[in-house]
């Protein structure tokens, strides 16, 4: 019997073996353990004058884990099958004795195990929360069960889209869309339904029960309920059952769709040449000029003007939807300033995500296509290569930046607000810190994209988060006191030093990556 099962688990076992040899796995586990210890140490002073210090630490741990799973899941699982399609190696895998189930298990379940182990490694440390007081062992275990089930669900949604889509970017986008439709949209519906009932109109009971059910299965709400000191909730919370069933359905669908969706991929089948616009006809991309690399990145990495317009339209649409939702639940028309605030917040959020993604893709795309070597051997120098890459990536940030600026303009477009606006030292120091943080993050992600093949953006986020905690803890431990302004300026200086160190290492990393192709 075991002999028959061997081919099914062959790829799975190999993936586990590779993970156990990788440097990333122990580093990630060590970082998580460090983070937990810092949380506990950071809260140590408040332990004496709080009734439930353990609860405080547990809330921090589960929320950090929830968002880490969401980001880690999107970046890791959505590429499970698409990376094979992109490398044209899926056909080779299918030619072996590996059937679709074996490929799915090997490519995705091994990564799920890695994620589950990352959760498991935290459990003994999190048990300290029980000693600190305020939570029971049941609550701790329930939180980790909810997180594990959420990870399982996310893994399988991403796997399903990875089977259906040809490219990782599309699979990631579809996983995000599914997550929003599943977890976020019901919240909007609920708030709208609630707003309608305040107006004297009664909300139909079936809508209420459906919406309440959807909220019940949301892991964030389930985690919040589980951490509350009231207790008394059943161990098998709603979200666990739903996540497990949903995950299994998605895995089943991925298995069913594997053959129809993956046999049409292009590996080993010569593809007929596609024709571009007729010979001599000018393409909308025009011709490259002196900054050829910037031109290439703008058109072929960022998608060119068309992509800019599409993204601008999507952002405006979502921002307007947000305004409409806010107006509906407040039951009043919004003023220009309120709309401005929403545009600003939404614009900054989109800008931050795009900023990280652009930084991550800048060199990762060249490494993936093995084109960094030929760019590196151009007679222009590494400095110019980096500058042109940045120049080619910046226009991609225009739609989100324009939305945020429009929001700012709407907020400050009235004389009284303009008078209120003061350029205080706190404001200047805060702005310096934010700008330093953004630049540090971009340089860090760029550097990581030259070092690692997978998920530099997510790793960058985790590193920044960890660094932030370590710096805050160190400043507190070293007794760095003073005004907020001086603390922010100290942090900015630390960030600038770190940025300069990383930036100085990028040319060398480019050379190493180019030579390693």
């Amino acid at each position, binding site marked *: 019997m075991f002999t028959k099962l061997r081919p099914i688990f062959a790829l799975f076992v190999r993936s586990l073996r590779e993970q156990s040899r990788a440097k990333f796995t122990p580093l990630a586990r060590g970082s998580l353990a460090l983070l937990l210890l810092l949380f506990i140490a950071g809260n140590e002073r408040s332990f004496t004058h709080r009734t439930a210090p353990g609860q405080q630490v547990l809330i921090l741990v589960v929320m950090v884990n929830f968002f880490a799973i969401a980001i880690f899941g999107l970046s890791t699982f959505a590429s499970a099958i698409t990376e094979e399609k992109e490398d044209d190696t899926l056909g080779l895998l299918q030619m072996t004795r590996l059937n679709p189930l074996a490929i799915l298990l090997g490519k995705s379940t091994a990564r799920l195990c890695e994620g589950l182990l990352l959760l498991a490694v935290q459990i003994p440390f999190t048990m300290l929360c029980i000693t600190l007081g305020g939570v029971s062992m049941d609550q701790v275990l329930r939180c980790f069960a909810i997180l594990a089930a959420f990870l399982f669900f996310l893994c399988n949604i991403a796997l399903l889209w990875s089977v259906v889509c040809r490219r990782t970017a599309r699979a990631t986008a579809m996983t995000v869309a599914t997550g929003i439709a599943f977890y976020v949209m019901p919240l909007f519906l609920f708030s709208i339904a609630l707003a309608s009932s305040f107006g004297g109109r009664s909300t139909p009971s079936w809508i209420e029960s459906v919406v309440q059910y959807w909220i019940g299965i949301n892991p964030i709400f389930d985690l919040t309920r589980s951490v509350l000191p009231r207790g008394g909730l059943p161990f098998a919370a709603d979200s666990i059952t739903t996540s497990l069933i949903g995950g299994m359905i998605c895995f089943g669908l991925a298995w069913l769709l594997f053959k129809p969706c993956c046999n049409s991929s292009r590996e080993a089948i010569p593809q*007929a040449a*596609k024709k*571009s*616009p007729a010979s001599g006809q000018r393409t909308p991309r025009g011709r490259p000029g002196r900054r050829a690399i910037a031109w290439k990145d703008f058109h072929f990495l960022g998608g060119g003007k068309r992509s800019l317009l599409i993204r601008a339209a999507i952002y405006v649409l979502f921002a307007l939807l947000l305004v409409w939702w806010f107006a509906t639940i407040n039951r009043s028309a919004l003023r220009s300033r309120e709309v401005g605030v929403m545009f600003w917040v939404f614009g900054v959020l989109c800008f931050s995500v795009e900023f990280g993604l652009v930084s991550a893709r800048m060199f990762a795309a060249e490494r993936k296509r*093995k084109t960094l070597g*030929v760019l590196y051997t151009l007679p222009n120098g590494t400095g110019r290569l980096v500058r042109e890459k940045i120049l080619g990536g910046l226009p991609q940030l225009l739609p989100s930046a324009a939305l945020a600026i429009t929001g700012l303009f709407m907020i400050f477009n009235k004389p009284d607000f303009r008078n209120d606006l003061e350029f205080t030292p706190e404001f200047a120091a805060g702005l310096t810190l934010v700008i330093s943080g953004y630049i540090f993050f971009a340089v860090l992600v760029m550097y990581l994209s030259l070092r690692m093949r997978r998920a530099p953006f997510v790793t960058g986020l985790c590193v920044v988060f960890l660094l932030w905690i370590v710096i805050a803890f160190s400043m507190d431990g070293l007794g760095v006191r003073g005004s907020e302004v001086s603390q922010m300026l100290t942090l900015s200086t630390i960030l600038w030093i770190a940025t300069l160190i990383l930036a100085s290492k990028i040319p060398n990393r480019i050379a190493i990556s180019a030579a390693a192709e």
Partner: protein
Amino acid sequence: MDTPPVIDIRNLRHAYKNHVAVADVTFTVDARSIHGFVGPNGAGKTTTLKVLATLLPPQTGTVFAFGKDIVRERNSVRQKIGYMPDHFSMYRQMTVFEYLDFFGAAYGMSQSQRDKTIADVLALTDMAGRKDDFVQGLSRGMQQRVSLARVLVHDPDLLLLDEPASGLDPRARIELMEILQELKRLGKTIFISSHILSELAELCDSVTILDRGAVKYTGTMRGLIVGEKSGDAFAITLAAEHPPLVAALTALPGITRVQQPVNGEARYTIEFDPAALSPNAILQAALASGASITAFQEDVKHLNQAFMDLTEPGVRT
């Protein structure tokens, strides 16, 4: 006055951690020649090519291209070389024309220069009819041609080609070799690596054989197949052994050695001083001795044999 070598590598050494990829490599490549760089897998060919292409700095030793140090005058050297790696470095969403146009612009060429050069290289590589096709739809052979066109787009004097014929069908290989011959006629120096010596035999003027990171032979192709002999050598093959032939030949002035048949094959190898004796005189003397000659030819090693003699068996550890 002699033309200085286009490539001059002296005592090059490069190691990846504890693994020494190339050790004490020294050779030169003449201008306007095709130089083969041959060795078994893992011999250090790609590492040497990467050093020449300025992708890797030499850890010890010196490397000059066109008389310029490739480390100190890197950008100047890069302008004069075209490097084609052993994999396709392609932007698959571009058309063939866009791909070449991009690289032309990246090398600082004006639009009019690019239009002319791209038309020329597309004609040379026989890809003019496919210039509006997307790269991702092209066959392997065509992608190889596009890669070669990309290398040529800025009109470099030295082409560094890493296994350009690997994975190509026999027809595509022959066509590629014809393109390289044409490039040599246009005055380019071509440095081409391969792990198959016979593939380069008719193409190359000179060759360097590398094995386990060390140079085993560097020099002309003829020197490789003729070997280290005091003069010229010819072989006479007879229908059957004929002892009077040895006496007749040793009596000739200028003969340095006559090697008798071994393994039962009636094949005599004659080494002689070409200044004192001609192959015609040897043939006449052999016929006069009454030998029944079935073949008379220059005594050269088979290329594969030469390669096997110079390289060690087994896998590099």
